[in-house]
Protein backbone atom coordinates (compact mmCIF):
# COMPACT_ATOMS: atom_id res chain seq x y z
CA UNK A 1 0.00 0.00 0.00
CA UNK A 2 1.28 3.47 -0.90
CA UNK A 3 2.03 5.78 2.00
CA UNK A 4 0.01 9.02 1.93
CA UNK A 5 1.75 12.06 0.56
CA UNK A 6 3.21 14.03 3.47
CA UNK A 7 1.73 17.20 1.91
CA UNK A 8 -1.81 15.80 2.06
CA UNK A 9 -2.39 16.39 5.74
CA UNK A 10 0.11 19.19 6.20
CA UNK A 11 -1.18 22.40 7.77
CA UNK A 12 1.00 24.22 5.24
CA UNK A 13 -1.09 22.84 2.35
CA UNK A 14 -4.33 23.97 3.96
CA UNK A 15 -2.96 27.40 4.90
CA UNK A 16 -1.80 27.93 1.34
CA UNK A 17 -5.17 26.68 0.03
CA UNK A 18 -6.95 29.27 2.17
CA UNK A 19 -4.63 31.98 0.84
CA UNK A 20 -5.36 30.87 -2.73
CA UNK A 21 -9.11 30.93 -1.99
CA UNK A 22 -8.80 34.49 -0.69
CA UNK A 23 -7.11 35.38 -3.97
CA UNK A 24 -9.82 33.61 -5.98
CA UNK A 25 -12.44 35.53 -4.01
CA UNK A 26 -10.84 38.78 -5.07
CA UNK A 27 -10.73 37.49 -8.63
CA UNK A 28 -14.44 36.61 -8.59
CA UNK A 29 -15.26 40.07 -7.31
CA UNK A 30 -13.05 42.04 -9.64
CA UNK A 31 -12.33 40.32 -12.90
CA UNK A 32 -14.02 41.64 -16.03
CA UNK A 33 -13.92 38.02 -17.17
CA UNK A 34 -16.97 37.51 -14.96
CA UNK A 35 -18.44 41.00 -14.79
CA UNK A 36 -17.82 42.18 -18.32
CA UNK A 37 -21.11 41.26 -19.99
CA UNK A 38 -22.85 44.36 -21.31
CA UNK A 39 -25.27 42.73 -23.74
CA UNK A 40 -27.96 42.30 -21.13
CA UNK A 41 -31.00 42.16 -23.42
CA UNK A 42 -31.68 38.55 -24.37
CA UNK A 43 -33.03 38.43 -27.90
CA UNK A 44 -33.83 34.75 -28.29
CA UNK A 45 -37.45 34.53 -27.02
CA UNK A 46 -37.11 31.28 -25.06
CA UNK A 47 -33.81 32.33 -23.53
CA UNK A 48 -35.28 35.73 -22.75
CA UNK A 49 -37.92 34.08 -20.63
CA UNK A 50 -35.26 32.51 -18.46
CA UNK A 51 -32.36 34.94 -18.49
CA UNK A 52 -33.50 38.55 -18.73
CA UNK A 53 -34.28 38.93 -15.04
CA UNK A 54 -31.06 37.15 -14.15
CA UNK A 55 -28.86 39.50 -16.18
CA UNK A 56 -30.67 42.50 -14.74
CA UNK A 57 -29.84 41.32 -11.22
CA UNK A 58 -26.27 40.61 -12.35
CA UNK A 59 -26.13 44.23 -13.46
CA UNK A 60 -27.45 45.38 -10.06
CA UNK A 61 -24.80 43.30 -8.27
CA UNK A 62 -22.11 44.72 -10.54
CA UNK A 63 -23.23 48.29 -9.87
CA UNK A 64 -23.37 47.75 -6.13
CA UNK A 65 -20.17 45.80 -5.65
CA UNK A 66 -17.69 46.87 -8.28
CA UNK A 67 -15.91 50.22 -8.50
CA UNK A 68 -17.95 52.80 -10.36
CA UNK A 69 -16.83 55.77 -12.46
CA UNK A 70 -16.31 58.95 -10.50
CA UNK A 71 -19.21 61.35 -10.47
CA UNK A 72 -19.87 64.42 -8.39
CA UNK A 73 -23.29 63.03 -7.51
CA UNK A 74 -25.12 59.80 -7.84
CA UNK A 75 -28.83 59.03 -8.01
CA UNK A 76 -30.12 55.53 -7.27
CA UNK A 77 -33.40 54.25 -8.73
CA UNK A 78 -35.01 51.18 -7.19
CA UNK A 79 -38.09 49.40 -8.49
CA UNK A 80 -39.16 46.83 -11.07
CA UNK A 81 -39.93 46.69 -14.80
CA UNK A 82 -42.00 49.87 -14.55
CA UNK A 83 -38.76 51.73 -13.85
CA UNK A 84 -36.18 49.50 -15.50
CA UNK A 85 -36.72 50.31 -19.16
CA UNK A 86 -38.32 53.75 -18.92
CA UNK A 87 -35.55 55.11 -16.70
CA UNK A 88 -32.40 53.60 -18.15
CA UNK A 89 -29.36 55.45 -16.83
CA UNK A 90 -28.63 57.10 -20.19
CA UNK A 91 -32.15 58.50 -20.62
CA UNK A 92 -32.34 60.02 -17.15
CA UNK A 93 -28.79 61.36 -17.29
CA UNK A 94 -29.59 63.05 -20.60
CA UNK A 95 -32.73 64.62 -19.15
CA UNK A 96 -30.76 65.80 -16.11
CA UNK A 97 -28.08 67.35 -18.34
CA UNK A 98 -30.74 69.20 -20.32
CA UNK A 99 -32.40 70.55 -17.19
CA UNK A 100 -29.20 71.26 -15.23
CA UNK A 101 -26.22 71.44 -17.60
CA UNK A 102 -23.74 72.04 -14.78
CA UNK A 103 -24.75 69.00 -12.76
CA UNK A 104 -22.42 65.98 -12.91
CA UNK A 105 -24.91 63.29 -11.91
CA UNK A 106 -24.58 59.58 -12.50
CA UNK A 107 -27.78 57.56 -12.44
CA UNK A 108 -27.75 53.97 -11.22
CA UNK A 109 -30.93 52.13 -12.09
CA UNK A 110 -31.09 49.17 -9.70
CA UNK A 111 -34.47 47.91 -10.85
CA UNK A 112 -35.23 44.52 -12.31
CA UNK A 113 -38.20 42.75 -13.84
CA UNK A 114 -40.68 41.21 -11.44
CA UNK A 115 -39.19 42.81 -8.32
CA UNK A 116 -41.62 42.94 -5.43
CA UNK A 117 -41.17 44.93 -2.25
CA UNK A 118 -39.08 42.21 -0.56
CA UNK A 119 -36.68 42.16 -3.51
CA UNK A 120 -36.45 45.95 -3.46
CA UNK A 121 -35.77 45.91 0.28
CA UNK A 122 -32.87 43.51 -0.32
CA UNK A 123 -31.37 45.89 -2.89
CA UNK A 124 -31.79 48.82 -0.47
CA UNK A 125 -29.48 47.13 2.09
CA UNK A 126 -26.49 47.91 -0.11
CA UNK A 127 -27.40 51.41 -1.26
CA UNK A 128 -24.88 53.08 1.02
CA UNK A 129 -22.10 51.58 -1.11
CA UNK A 130 -23.04 53.98 -3.91
CA UNK A 131 -23.23 57.04 -1.65
CA UNK A 132 -26.16 58.49 -3.59
CA UNK A 133 -27.47 61.97 -2.91
CA UNK A 134 -30.97 61.00 -4.02
CA UNK A 135 -32.81 57.67 -3.87
CA UNK A 136 -35.97 57.20 -5.91
CA UNK A 137 -38.33 54.36 -5.01
CA UNK A 138 -40.64 53.56 -7.93
CA UNK A 139 -43.91 51.91 -6.97
CA UNK A 140 -46.89 50.84 -9.02
CA UNK A 141 -48.68 49.19 -6.09
CA UNK A 142 -48.36 45.61 -7.32
CA UNK A 143 -45.03 45.32 -5.47
CA UNK A 144 -46.89 45.14 -2.18
CA UNK A 145 -48.89 42.00 -2.84
CA UNK A 146 -48.29 38.35 -3.59
CA UNK A 147 -49.62 37.24 -6.95
CA UNK A 148 -49.95 33.89 -8.67
CA UNK A 149 -46.45 34.04 -10.16
CA UNK A 150 -44.56 36.27 -7.76
CA UNK A 151 -43.87 36.30 -4.03
CA UNK A 152 -42.74 39.28 -1.96
CA UNK A 153 -39.18 37.94 -2.41
CA UNK A 154 -38.38 36.12 -5.64
CA UNK A 155 -35.50 33.98 -6.92
CA UNK A 156 -33.97 37.02 -8.61
CA UNK A 157 -33.96 39.16 -5.45
CA UNK A 158 -32.75 36.23 -3.39
CA UNK A 159 -29.53 36.22 -5.44
CA UNK A 160 -28.65 39.50 -3.75
CA UNK A 161 -29.86 38.56 -0.27
CA UNK A 162 -27.14 39.11 2.34
CA UNK A 163 -26.76 40.37 5.88
CA UNK A 164 -26.20 38.97 9.36
CA UNK A 165 -29.66 39.91 10.61
CA UNK A 166 -32.98 38.74 9.23
CA UNK A 167 -34.81 41.11 6.92
CA UNK A 168 -38.45 42.11 7.42
CA UNK A 169 -39.52 38.77 5.94
CA UNK A 170 -37.91 36.04 8.02
CA UNK A 171 -36.14 33.21 6.16
CA UNK A 172 -38.34 30.25 5.32
CA UNK A 173 -36.03 27.83 7.09
CA UNK A 174 -32.91 27.63 9.23
CA UNK A 175 -30.89 26.48 6.26
CA UNK A 176 -31.97 29.57 4.34
CA UNK A 177 -30.66 31.73 7.18
CA UNK A 178 -27.35 29.84 7.28
CA UNK A 179 -27.15 30.17 3.51
CA UNK A 180 -27.55 33.96 3.86
CA UNK A 181 -24.82 34.09 6.50
CA UNK A 182 -22.52 32.11 4.25
CA UNK A 183 -23.27 34.47 1.37
CA UNK A 184 -22.53 37.43 3.62
CA UNK A 185 -19.19 36.04 4.76
CA UNK A 186 -17.99 34.54 1.51
CA UNK A 187 -18.17 36.59 -1.69
CA UNK A 188 -17.34 33.67 -3.94
CA UNK A 189 -20.35 31.79 -2.60
CA UNK A 190 -22.54 34.87 -2.76
CA UNK A 191 -21.78 35.65 -6.38
CA UNK A 192 -21.47 32.07 -7.58
CA UNK A 193 -24.43 32.25 -9.96
CA UNK A 194 -23.12 35.42 -11.56
CA UNK A 195 -19.58 34.01 -11.73
CA UNK A 196 -20.77 30.84 -13.39
CA UNK A 197 -23.02 32.58 -15.90
CA UNK A 198 -20.54 35.40 -16.56
CA UNK A 199 -17.74 32.93 -17.29
CA UNK A 200 -19.97 30.76 -19.47
CA UNK A 201 -21.05 33.80 -21.45
CA UNK A 202 -17.43 34.81 -22.00
CA UNK A 203 -16.51 31.36 -23.21
CA UNK A 204 -19.62 30.95 -25.38
CA UNK A 205 -21.23 34.38 -25.79
CA UNK A 206 -24.90 34.48 -26.75
CA UNK A 207 -24.32 36.22 -30.07
CA UNK A 208 -27.91 37.49 -30.34
CA UNK A 209 -27.87 39.32 -26.98
CA UNK A 210 -27.77 43.09 -27.27
CA UNK A 211 -26.89 46.15 -25.25
CA UNK A 212 -29.79 48.41 -24.38
CA UNK A 213 -29.70 51.34 -26.83
CA UNK A 214 -28.86 54.66 -25.22
CA UNK A 215 -31.37 56.35 -27.48
CA UNK A 216 -34.65 55.44 -29.18
CA UNK A 217 -36.10 57.85 -31.70
CA UNK A 218 -39.56 56.34 -32.19
CA UNK A 219 -41.86 53.52 -31.08
CA UNK A 220 -40.98 51.73 -34.33
CA UNK A 221 -37.32 51.66 -33.27
CA UNK A 222 -38.28 50.23 -29.89
CA UNK A 223 -40.45 47.55 -31.46
CA UNK A 224 -37.73 46.60 -33.94
CA UNK A 225 -35.33 46.23 -31.03
CA UNK A 226 -37.70 44.22 -28.84
CA UNK A 227 -39.43 42.04 -31.37
CA UNK A 228 -37.35 41.96 -34.56
CA UNK A 229 -39.53 41.01 -37.53
CA UNK A 230 -42.71 40.78 -35.46
CA UNK A 231 -42.06 44.34 -34.28
CA UNK A 232 -42.29 45.58 -37.85
CA UNK A 233 -45.79 44.15 -38.24
CA UNK A 234 -46.80 45.49 -34.81
CA UNK A 235 -45.94 49.01 -35.98
CA UNK A 236 -48.87 48.92 -38.42
CA UNK A 237 -51.25 47.92 -35.61
CA UNK A 238 -49.79 50.69 -33.45
CA UNK A 239 -50.32 53.25 -36.21
CA UNK A 240 -53.89 52.01 -36.63
CA UNK A 241 -54.46 52.55 -32.92
CA UNK A 242 -52.98 56.08 -33.13
CA UNK A 243 -55.49 56.86 -35.91
CA UNK A 244 -58.40 55.52 -33.82
CA UNK A 245 -57.18 55.48 -30.20
CA UNK A 246 -59.63 53.11 -28.53
CA UNK A 247 -59.06 50.71 -25.66
CA UNK A 248 -59.69 47.68 -27.87
CA UNK A 249 -57.42 49.03 -30.60
CA UNK A 250 -54.60 49.26 -28.07
CA UNK A 251 -55.32 45.72 -26.88
CA UNK A 252 -55.06 44.61 -30.52
CA UNK A 253 -51.66 46.32 -30.77
CA UNK A 254 -50.44 44.42 -27.71
CA UNK A 255 -51.65 41.14 -29.15
CA UNK A 256 -49.89 41.93 -32.44
CA UNK A 257 -46.68 42.07 -30.39
CA UNK A 258 -47.45 38.63 -29.00
CA UNK A 259 -48.21 40.05 -25.56
CA UNK A 260 -51.55 39.18 -23.90
CA UNK A 261 -53.62 42.31 -23.26
CA UNK A 262 -55.24 40.74 -20.19
CA UNK A 263 -53.06 40.72 -17.04
CA UNK A 264 -50.50 37.88 -17.04
CA UNK A 265 -50.29 37.97 -13.26
CA UNK A 266 -53.58 39.43 -11.96
CA UNK A 267 -53.64 41.55 -8.82
CA UNK A 268 -55.81 40.58 -5.84
CA UNK A 269 -58.93 42.34 -4.62
CA UNK A 270 -57.84 45.83 -3.47
CA UNK A 271 -59.63 45.28 -0.16
CA UNK A 272 -56.98 42.68 0.73
CA UNK A 273 -54.30 45.38 0.72
CA UNK A 274 -54.29 46.94 4.18
CA UNK A 275 -51.82 48.61 6.52
CA UNK A 276 -51.40 45.18 8.12
CA UNK A 277 -50.49 43.37 4.89
CA UNK A 278 -47.05 41.67 4.95
CA UNK A 279 -45.93 43.64 1.92
CA UNK A 280 -46.85 46.89 3.63
CA UNK A 281 -44.80 45.88 6.68
CA UNK A 282 -41.82 45.42 4.36
CA UNK A 283 -42.47 48.82 2.80
CA UNK A 284 -42.50 50.31 6.30
CA UNK A 285 -39.07 48.83 7.10
CA UNK A 286 -37.73 49.87 3.71
CA UNK A 287 -38.89 53.46 4.15
CA UNK A 288 -37.45 53.56 7.69
CA UNK A 289 -34.06 52.62 6.22
CA UNK A 290 -34.30 55.04 3.31
CA UNK A 291 -35.46 57.90 5.53
CA UNK A 292 -32.51 57.32 7.88
CA UNK A 293 -29.96 57.31 5.04
CA UNK A 294 -27.66 60.24 4.24
CA UNK A 295 -29.63 61.07 1.08
CA UNK A 296 -32.93 62.50 -0.04
CA UNK A 297 -35.61 59.92 -0.72
CA UNK A 298 -38.84 60.19 -2.62
CA UNK A 299 -41.39 57.72 -3.92
CA UNK A 300 -42.76 57.94 -7.45
CA UNK A 301 -46.16 56.42 -8.04
CA UNK A 302 -45.49 55.22 -11.54
CA UNK A 303 -47.44 56.43 -14.58
CA UNK A 304 -50.58 54.54 -15.53
CA UNK A 305 -52.04 54.24 -18.98
CA UNK A 306 -55.06 56.59 -19.06
CA UNK A 307 -56.74 54.23 -21.53
CA UNK A 308 -57.55 52.06 -18.54
CA UNK A 309 -60.15 54.66 -17.52
CA UNK A 310 -62.27 53.14 -20.28
CA UNK A 311 -61.78 49.62 -18.90
CA UNK A 312 -64.84 49.87 -16.66
CA UNK A 313 -65.34 46.12 -16.48
CA UNK A 314 -61.81 45.43 -15.33
CA UNK A 315 -60.85 43.25 -18.26
CA UNK A 316 -57.35 44.71 -18.51
CA UNK A 317 -56.62 45.79 -14.94
CA UNK A 318 -57.80 45.31 -11.35
CA UNK A 319 -60.39 47.98 -10.70
CA UNK A 320 -59.66 50.13 -7.66
CA UNK A 321 -56.24 48.65 -6.93
CA UNK A 322 -54.22 51.70 -7.91
CA UNK A 323 -56.24 54.05 -5.69
CA UNK A 324 -56.04 51.64 -2.76
CA UNK A 325 -52.28 51.16 -3.17
CA UNK A 326 -51.69 54.92 -3.47
CA UNK A 327 -53.62 55.50 -0.25
CA UNK A 328 -51.70 52.83 1.67
CA UNK A 329 -48.31 53.96 0.29
CA UNK A 330 -49.14 57.57 1.21
CA UNK A 331 -49.98 56.62 4.78
CA UNK A 332 -46.83 54.57 5.30
CA UNK A 333 -44.66 57.25 3.67
CA UNK A 334 -46.15 59.88 6.00
CA UNK A 335 -44.91 57.89 9.01
CA UNK A 336 -41.37 58.42 7.79
CA UNK A 337 -41.82 61.89 6.28
CA UNK A 338 -40.95 60.53 2.82
CA UNK A 339 -42.34 62.58 -0.06
CA UNK A 340 -44.67 60.81 -2.48
CA UNK A 341 -44.76 62.13 -6.04
CA UNK A 342 -47.90 61.02 -7.79
CA UNK A 343 -46.82 60.35 -11.36
CA UNK A 344 -49.83 58.24 -12.27
CA UNK A 345 -51.14 60.93 -14.65
CA UNK A 346 -47.79 62.12 -15.98
CA UNK A 347 -48.12 60.51 -19.40
CA UNK A 348 -50.71 60.26 -22.21
CA UNK A 349 -51.76 56.90 -23.66
CA UNK A 350 -49.36 57.20 -26.60
CA UNK A 351 -46.47 57.16 -24.12
CA UNK A 352 -47.18 53.51 -23.24
CA UNK A 353 -46.02 50.31 -24.86
CA UNK A 354 -48.65 48.31 -22.93
CA UNK A 355 -51.10 48.94 -20.12
CA UNK A 356 -48.34 49.45 -17.53
CA UNK A 357 -45.01 50.32 -19.09
CA UNK A 358 -44.00 53.61 -20.71
CA UNK A 359 -42.01 53.38 -23.94
CA UNK A 360 -38.31 53.51 -23.16
CA UNK A 361 -36.88 56.94 -23.98
CA UNK A 362 -39.63 58.03 -26.43
CA UNK A 363 -42.28 58.25 -23.67
CA UNK A 364 -40.42 61.19 -22.13
CA UNK A 365 -40.98 59.70 -18.66
CA UNK A 366 -37.41 60.61 -17.80
CA UNK A 367 -38.13 64.35 -18.00
CA UNK A 368 -40.62 64.72 -15.10
CA UNK A 369 -38.53 62.16 -13.22
CA UNK A 370 -35.41 64.29 -13.70
CA UNK A 371 -37.33 67.37 -12.57
CA UNK A 372 -38.28 65.60 -9.37
CA UNK A 373 -34.71 64.39 -8.83
CA UNK A 374 -33.45 67.95 -9.15
CA UNK A 375 -36.13 69.14 -6.74
CA UNK A 376 -35.08 66.49 -4.20
CA UNK A 377 -31.44 67.43 -4.66
CA UNK A 378 -32.13 71.05 -3.79
CA UNK A 379 -34.19 70.26 -0.70
Amino acid sequence: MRAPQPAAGSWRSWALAVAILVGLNALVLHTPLIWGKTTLWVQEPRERLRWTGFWQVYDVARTLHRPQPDAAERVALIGNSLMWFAAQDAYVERALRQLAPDADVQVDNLSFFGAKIGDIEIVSRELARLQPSVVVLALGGSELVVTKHLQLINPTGRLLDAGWRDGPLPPRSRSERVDRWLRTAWPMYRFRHFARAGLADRLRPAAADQSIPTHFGSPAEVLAFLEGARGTSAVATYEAWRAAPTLEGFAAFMRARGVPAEPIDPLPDPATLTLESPGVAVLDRLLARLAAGPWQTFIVLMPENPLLDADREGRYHRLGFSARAAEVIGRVAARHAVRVVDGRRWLPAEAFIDFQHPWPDVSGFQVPLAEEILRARQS
Partner: protein
Amino acid sequence: MRANPEPAPSLAAVLLRALLYAGAITVLVLYAPDDGGRFIYVGF
Protein backbone atom coordinates in the same frame (compact mmCIF):
# COMPACT_ATOMS: atom_id res chain seq x y z
CA MET B 1 12.36 2.73 20.13
CA ARG B 2 11.35 6.04 18.49
CA ALA B 3 9.61 5.88 15.11
CA ASN B 4 11.26 7.63 12.24
CA PRO B 5 9.90 11.18 11.92
CA GLU B 6 7.92 11.84 8.72
CA PRO B 7 9.92 13.74 6.15
CA ALA B 8 8.79 17.37 5.69
CA PRO B 9 6.85 17.77 2.45
CA SER B 10 8.58 19.62 -0.33
CA LEU B 11 7.39 23.12 -1.26
CA ALA B 12 6.24 21.89 -4.65
CA ALA B 13 4.15 19.15 -3.06
CA VAL B 14 2.55 21.62 -0.64
CA LEU B 15 1.78 24.04 -3.48
CA LEU B 16 0.28 21.29 -5.59
CA ARG B 17 -1.93 20.11 -2.72
CA ALA B 18 -3.02 23.66 -1.92
CA LEU B 19 -3.98 24.28 -5.54
CA LEU B 20 -5.86 21.00 -5.57
CA TYR B 21 -7.83 21.84 -2.42
CA ALA B 22 -8.59 25.44 -3.42
CA GLY B 23 -9.52 24.37 -6.94
CA ALA B 24 -11.83 21.61 -5.71
CA ILE B 25 -13.58 23.98 -3.28
CA THR B 26 -13.97 26.62 -6.01
CA VAL B 27 -15.44 24.17 -8.49
CA LEU B 28 -17.79 22.79 -5.84
CA VAL B 29 -18.99 26.25 -4.87
CA LEU B 30 -19.44 27.50 -8.41
CA TYR B 31 -20.94 24.39 -9.96
CA ALA B 32 -22.87 22.66 -7.19
CA PRO B 33 -26.49 22.12 -8.29
CA ASP B 34 -28.96 24.73 -7.06
CA ASP B 35 -32.24 26.37 -7.96
CA GLY B 36 -30.69 29.01 -10.19
CA GLY B 37 -32.94 28.14 -13.10
CA ARG B 38 -36.24 29.23 -11.61
CA PHE B 39 -36.35 32.75 -12.94
CA ILE B 40 -39.62 34.01 -14.16
CA TYR B 41 -39.79 36.65 -16.82
CA VAL B 42 -42.45 39.20 -16.05
CA GLY B 43 -42.08 42.27 -18.17
CA PHE B 44 -42.17 43.43 -21.73
